[in-house]
């Protein structure tokens, strides 16, 4: 580590990992990586490595949880014990449980759950390696897994965070920026329907800063959506053998 590690933004205006303020981490997405699940996808965003897969729709267990008018989306966000610097207990933490709910609520508006009443869709998001912004990357990749499995969707959901670090507004915060920065605003977005499905804030921002940060996060989402879209098509265009 260089000596200047306590400075998150250097004098040239570059961030700790060499990015510009409005630059996303390099992102690689692959769709349909698992054969046993009904749909799956994998994302590498900077040092984040996340796998998402789902089963369903199928009958609900236990039966009393079934909803008479729509499908039940069950979502599990889970960090592997080896995903962080110090071993994390594999049991779901308070944070895991909260993020499972947050991700579920961010994805629910995009799914036609009402098409399959009395069933459940079991979605699993496995964080293999975490480096900040895993909830956003988790949403992005989970949406692709659902599309891969043929679940009817209103739109893909893409998520990206933005925030404030050492007085500067930045997009797609990494682990250090998230922990030492002033504010973090994760946002999930359905690009074609132009609808925000998740908006959280941690830290302090003025109203004008907040508005700028939201715009920044939306811009990040739109860039990420292009990668998301291409990766979904890539699976079939290559497989076509044309």
């Amino acid at each position, binding site marked *: 580590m260089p000596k200047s590690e306590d400075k998150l933004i250097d004098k040239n205006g570059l961030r700790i990992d060499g990015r510009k303020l409005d630059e996303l981490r390099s992102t690689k997405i692959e769709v349909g990586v698992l054969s046993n699940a009904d*749909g799956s996808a994998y994302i590498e965003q900077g040092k984040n490595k996340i796998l998402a897969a789902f089963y369903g729709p199928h009958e609900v267990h236990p039966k009393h949880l079934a909803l008479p008018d729509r499908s039940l989306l069950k979502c599990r966000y889970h960090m592997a014990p080896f995903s962080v610097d110090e071993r994390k207990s594999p049991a779901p933490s308070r944070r895991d449980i909260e993020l499972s709910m947050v991700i579920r609520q961010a994805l629910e508006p995009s799914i036609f759950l009402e098409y399959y009443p009395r069933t459940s869709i079991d979605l699993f998001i496995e964080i293999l390696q975490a480096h900040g912004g895993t909830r956003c990357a988790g949403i992005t990749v989970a949406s692709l897994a659902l599309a*891969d499995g043929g679940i009817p969707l209103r739109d893909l959901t893409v998520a990206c965070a933005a925030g404030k670090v050492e007085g500067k507004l930045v997009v797609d915060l990494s682990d250090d920026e998230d922990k030492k920065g002033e504010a973090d605003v994760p946002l999930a977005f359905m690009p074609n*329907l132009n609808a925000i499905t998740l908006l959280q804030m941690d830290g302090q921002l003025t109203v004008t800063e907040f508005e700028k940060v939201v715009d920044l996060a939306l811009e990040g989402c739109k860039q990420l959506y292009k990668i998301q879209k291409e990766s979904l098509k890539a699976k079939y265009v290559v497989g076509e053998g044309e």
Partner: protein
Amino acid sequence: MPTFFEKRQIVIPGDLIAEGNYVAGENTFKENGKLYSTHIGLVEYEERKVSVVALKGFYVPRVGDTVIGIVKNITMGGWIVDVNAPYLSLLRASDVVERSYRPQKDDLSSIFGVGDLVIAKIVSFDRTRDPLLSVREPGLGKISRGQIIEIAPTKIPRIIGRKGSMISMIKRETGCHILLGQNGLVLVNGKTLKDNRLAIMAIRKIEKESHTSGLTDRVTEMLKKEKEGEVENA
């Protein structure tokens, strides 16, 4: 009233396909006069109707479908059958047993046991009830011989072909009896294992190349070649 995609062009969920006076067909939805795709698939236009042929999907039961199912459980009143759908289906004992069904006397497991494969027709299904099956038609009932393969349910129409051209060609070329379950299970029943193998090969080829054109000719060619090869090897 513009459309934004060519016929047979690939779309993903949320892609805006058309705007204005169009009717939303399969795998699409309409909101505020705009028509979007809900699946990854290929666009089809049919006059004013816009639909998407899904590349990936699962089987959703429809009344009138012939399906192949696996008996999962036996209950007082009938059998629980897995038809590869989001819902388990029910086959009533009264539908199968001659005369009237007497739970004390009739042994259901002697008719269909757990693990048996059955060909059945879906007679009723809606949002509130699980699918109800029937075997009261010629050709339906327990499967006693043949080979079962599983394919993507979205590819079934392609294997049937236009007015059944594809499937009748495979039947003719291989001499196999083939039964397509709408749920993606296919029963292949030929005179020899070689015939079965040939038919399965053709079906797998169609599944893999379902979205390309001129497929019937290529499959015919492949089958003819394979048959010649077998004669030479013999």
